[in-house]
């Protein structure tokens, strides 16, 4: 990390070399597009309507490993041609300049020696690297001096025996995961080992790992690129959203491996809550886990007859086996009232001022308020999990259903679509509660709560249908209902996200916590 910081500071200290930042931002900011794309006239594009995105949507691209390799090769070839230096040296320079070709070229033209020195490439000799036996050589690392000892030196001339070099490189690559900035083993020497020298010294297995690590730096060095965090996924996502945009948009991206995550913080999709609130919320939940733990328990008692009720699917509409009392798992209220306009399961009724006069009452109310939102947040998280488990079972039954009912594979896919909708909608609902916890009341919160309630009711009723036994699922009327409800859920989710994202981008939400207040997205430069 230390070396990294130093590196950053060498780069940033050369501010005079940097292109004016504000120029760079225009294309990136007003449509969250890509920086490196030439910016055609935005007005025309918007008229065509093709590029018009929903306010909760960001544009992004998925790159597979070979794409990432190819992008690097293209840049290396360009630098290699323009500066007439070897590909190895071009690669080292590019990595040093964090793959910013323009800055590299500018600096190389103006201060060639300084640029080479900083990148760890001093005086250039184009002779290929080779192992040598030098009479009278004594290795400074292991102190061996036997005759015929093979040794190697980079351009700096610091010579070490091959065994020591190999050991050193092996440790850097295998244990420390270093590749782009492995220096000469000599004390105080910052010459960087190049790929050709490395190939000469280490085993093929290690070379492969080295190149993998080099590829990683390409993605890690670019602000517009991030690895898909899904385990075993090798893809990277490109997105133009910058850190400072994160108070205005929640940039959810979807990898081709189907993993959906936030480009800003790499956590799973957390729309509509902005990254900063998500971080606060997760911290709060972790800190308060003692108080809140009881909520995520799988069993509760029936509010009427007190018999224990276990939840086995995601549905929150509970029916007591014993007394047939129907109630809501989240608020324990009567289920029959949930569809009505006066009932609010999702909204926390703020107590009147008189109630919260003394400090004790205040802290009780604030705990109640937190628990209200946490309860629902945790519940949707749990329900999403339960729905998923249920789907795993259902999937097996789908095969059965196919056989028994004579439906084709494609005809039973509506269950898979329903499951997907449940997952995504619950994910969204979960975060609406974290979002709501930090939301201060204004004239927009009612609309938000209504949207939340509508989505929640739709999800619960889909969830309920989904829990039906396979024999009933085969019923074509239920099938149609499930398909309708699935698309309705998805629609309600879009409506909610659209509303929250629009208000977020326009800075209309008021939060009851400190929230880095954003500057308006349409800065003066974007109004053409």
């Amino acid at each position, binding site marked *: *990390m*230390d*070396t990294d910081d130093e590196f950053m500071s060498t780069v940033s200290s050369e501010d005079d070399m940097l292109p004016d930042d504000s120029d760079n931002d225009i294309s990136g900011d007003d449509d969250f597009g890509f920086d490196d794309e030439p910016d055609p006239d935005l007005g025309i594009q918007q008229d065509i309507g093709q590029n018009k995105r929903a306010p909760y949507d960001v544009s992004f691209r998925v790159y597979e490993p070979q794409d990432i390799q190819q992008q690097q090769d293209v840049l290396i070839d360009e630098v290699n041609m323009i500066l007439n230096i070897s590909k190895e040296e071009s690669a080292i320079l590019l990595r040093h300049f964090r793959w910013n070709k323009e800055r590299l070229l500018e600096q190389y033209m103006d201060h060639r020696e300084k640029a080479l020195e900083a990148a760890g490439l001093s005086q250039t000799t184009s002779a290929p690297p080779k192992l040598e036996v030098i009479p009278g050589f004594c290795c*400074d*690392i*292991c*102190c*061996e001096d036997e005759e015929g000892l093979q040794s190697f030196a980079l351009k700096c001339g*610091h010579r*070490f025996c091959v*065994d*020591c070099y190999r*050991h*050193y490189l092996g*440790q850097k690559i295998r244990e*420390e995961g*270093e590749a782009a900035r492995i*220096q000469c*083993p*000599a*004390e*105080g*020497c910052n010459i960087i080992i190049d790929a050709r020298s490395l190939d000469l010294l280490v085993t093929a297995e290690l070379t492969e790992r080295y190149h993998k690590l080099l590829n990683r730096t390409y993605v890690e060095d670019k602000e517009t690129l991030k690895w898909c965090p899904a385990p075993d996924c090798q893809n990277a996502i490109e997105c133009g959203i910058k850190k400072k945009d994160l108070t205005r948009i929640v940039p959810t991206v979807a990898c081709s491996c189907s993993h959906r995550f936030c480009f800003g913080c790499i956590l799973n999709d957390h729309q509509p809550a902005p990254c900063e609130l998500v971080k606060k919320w997760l911290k709060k939940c972790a800190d308060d886990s003692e108080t809140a733990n009881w909520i995520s328990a799988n069993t509760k008692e029936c509010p009427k007859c007190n018999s224990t009720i276990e939840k086995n699917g995601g549905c929150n509409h509970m029916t007591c086996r014993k007394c047939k009392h129907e109630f809501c798992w989240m608020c324990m209220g009567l289920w029959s009232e949930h569809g009505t306009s006066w009932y609010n399961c999702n909204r926390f009724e703020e107590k009147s001022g008189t109630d919260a006069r003394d400090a004790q009452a205040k802290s009780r109310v604030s705990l109640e308020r937190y628990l209200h939102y946490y309860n629902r947040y945790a519940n949707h998280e749990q329900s999403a999990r339960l729905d998923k488990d249920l789907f795993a079972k259902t999937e097996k039954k789908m095969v059965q259903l196919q056989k028994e009912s004579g439906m084709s594979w494609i005809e039973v896919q509506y269950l898979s679509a329903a499951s997907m909708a449940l997952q995504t909608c619950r994910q969204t609902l979960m975060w609406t509660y974290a979002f709501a916890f930090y939301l201060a009341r204004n004239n927009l919160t009612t609309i938000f709560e209504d949207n939340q309630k509508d989505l929640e009711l739709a999800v619960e009723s889909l969830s309920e249908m989904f829990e039906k036994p396979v024999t009933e699922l085969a019923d074509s009327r239920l099938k149609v209902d499930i398909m309708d409800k699935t698309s309705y859920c998805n629609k309600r989710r879009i409506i909610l996200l659209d509303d929250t994202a629009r208000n977020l981008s326009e800075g209309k939400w008021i939060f009851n916590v400190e929230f880095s207040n954003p500057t308006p997205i349409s800065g003066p430069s974007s109004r053409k």
Partner: protein
Amino acid sequence: MSSSKRITKELNDCLTSPPPSITITLPSESNISLWHITLTAPPESIYSGGKFGLIVQFPPEYPFKPPTITFATRIYHPNITNETNGSICLSLLKTDNWKPSTKIVTVLEAIRQLLVEPQPDDPLETRIAEQYKNERKEFEKEARAYVGRYAKGPVQFGTEAGAATTGGEGQQQQQQVS
């Protein structure tokens, strides 16, 4: 690859031309990987007049991994933990920065230099670092008091792996002093 050849060479070099204000002893003749160092504080430092015990442990992977160095004598310093066997924050010794060709004399010299010039922006003891930056007089007073309390008289090397047989006593004595 054995590290003993390298350590032996470094030890011989140190014994034939000893680095300034440093004496090296081996607590056990059979274990060349454990050194006891007595460092006389540089006269230009606030710790002048004190003698500090340092324990150097060379790992089996030496010189590809850095040696571990601790202060056996307590010292009031922003970059050294305020305890017996105080650890040192020295960028030279961090795995990322360590170079296998770096010699122990260089490291010892860097530690000596750290006594002359603490690095409060990279502290191990934040409170002491703050004091060093903001209330220099107070810091110096406390640092000198520590020298008087712990760093006068024969240097004790306390307990640590490899010297466990004789170590217990030394630490007890140190604790009695405090």
